[in-house]
């Protein structure tokens, strides 16, 4: 009973957590993320660089990422991934609900090549972005970066719950099994494979 009460109180506190600003997104299913991504990689953000796009119409940020492991697809050892928003001098552009990169952070990314400018982007915006974080007890987790900054909806318009963090080994096993089930033949099972 006491545990139930404590859980209920924690849940209520959780309900009052401060949400962040937003755009509106329709949620992708896991199957969509896996089947529509060109590659899924684990790596570390080496540096980020924000600048005006070639058209001069918007600020973009390019993140240089060292690829430590290719989980699905092919990838060189160092890639550049583009997102929108960033700071140029004292002008800040906030793109609500889009992926945000920080140098030094370890990540897992579902990536695709945007046909309009051939840049690599994160598929499904924040849904395709996970941080790799090691807890004090040594357990490493894949932490979803969906943070309410985007209004994440199912195609029928109903809200999607925030996904949970998963132990990284279990995350990869699940990803590979799901990809196999979907018929992908470019799944890598050993670390540090660059193609």
């Amino acid at each position: 009973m006491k545990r139930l009460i404590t859980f209920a109180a924690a849940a209520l506190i959780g309900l009052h957590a401060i949400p962040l600003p937003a755009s509106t997104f329709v949620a992708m299913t896991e199957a969509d993320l896996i089947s529509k991504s060109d590659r899924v990689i684990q790596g570390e953000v080496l540096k980020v660089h924000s600048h005006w796009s070639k058209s001069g119409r918007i600020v973009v940020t390019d993140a240089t990422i060292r690829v430590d492991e290719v989980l699905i697809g092919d990838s060189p050892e160092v890639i550049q991934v583009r997102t929108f928003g960033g700071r140029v001098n004292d002008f800040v552009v906030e793109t609500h609900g889009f992926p945000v990169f920080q140098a030094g952070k370890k990540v897992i990314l579902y990536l695709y090549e945007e046909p309009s400018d051939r840049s690599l982007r994160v598929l499904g915006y924040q849904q395709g972005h996970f941080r790799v974080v090691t807890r004090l007890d040594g357990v490493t987790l894949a932490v979803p970066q969906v943070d309410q900054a985007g209004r994440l909806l199912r195609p029928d318009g109903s809200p999607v719950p925030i996904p949970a963090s998963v132990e990284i080994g279990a995350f990869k096993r699940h990803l590979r099994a799901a990809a196999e089930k979907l018929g992908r033949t470019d799944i890598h099972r050993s670390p540090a494979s660059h193609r």
Partner: protein
Amino acid sequence: MKKAHLIRVSVIAAGLTVFGSVSAFVLLDPPRTWDTAPTYIVDNRGLASITDDDGGVSNTINAITGSQAWNGAGSGTVIGAQAGSVAGWRLGDGIPMLNFDDPEHACNGSCLAATFTGFFENRSDGSARIFDADIVTNDRFAWTSESEPDGCLSEFFIEGVMVHETGHAVGLAHTDVSGATMFPSVSACDNGPASIEQDDIDGLNALFAGGGGDGGGPPACELGQRGDACTSDAECCSGKCKGPAGRSSCR
């Protein structure tokens, strides 16, 4: 003992619930406002999937500037809009535009609509000055408006989504009050977000009570505030005078 614990937790929970329902709005961080109320240029091409007279242009303008949305919150005119060309769409030019297309291919795939806010962190009071905030739309989704003759079938209402997005453009973040315009989810065929609720009103008024920065923010509405006695809608900032004759008050 267990009973005492249950009561204590219940009181805390009730307190949180009451607090949440009374004051759950959230402002963008850092807090930010425009120097003067922005006037949005709404893409005069409209959206092809909206089969009203002008592809949803008029409905969008009326929704984001009407008294049921931000201008009716009691802080005066905080946003304007007019139809026009968005050919010059560019973040950072100080001309806020609502584009029914996505010229930079930033909002595609699973993105329905996106707001980009450009601001400077240069006010002495710690608030930021919004210089530009542009909105883009993914026209591959099925959109509808209140004026469509054929009703709604698994479509998204342009009015509700754009009142929500312009809420961000004027400085509001998400709330956890279900039913409020700034609640972070909406169902297909639900145009509820087109009309702001008390939580949205509280959020906007808190934003502008902060002074609005260098320019002092948009002028305060000199008409009746919420709770003031009134005899007609025209006497209220919100445009809503409700209640029985002789006891009506502004909402």
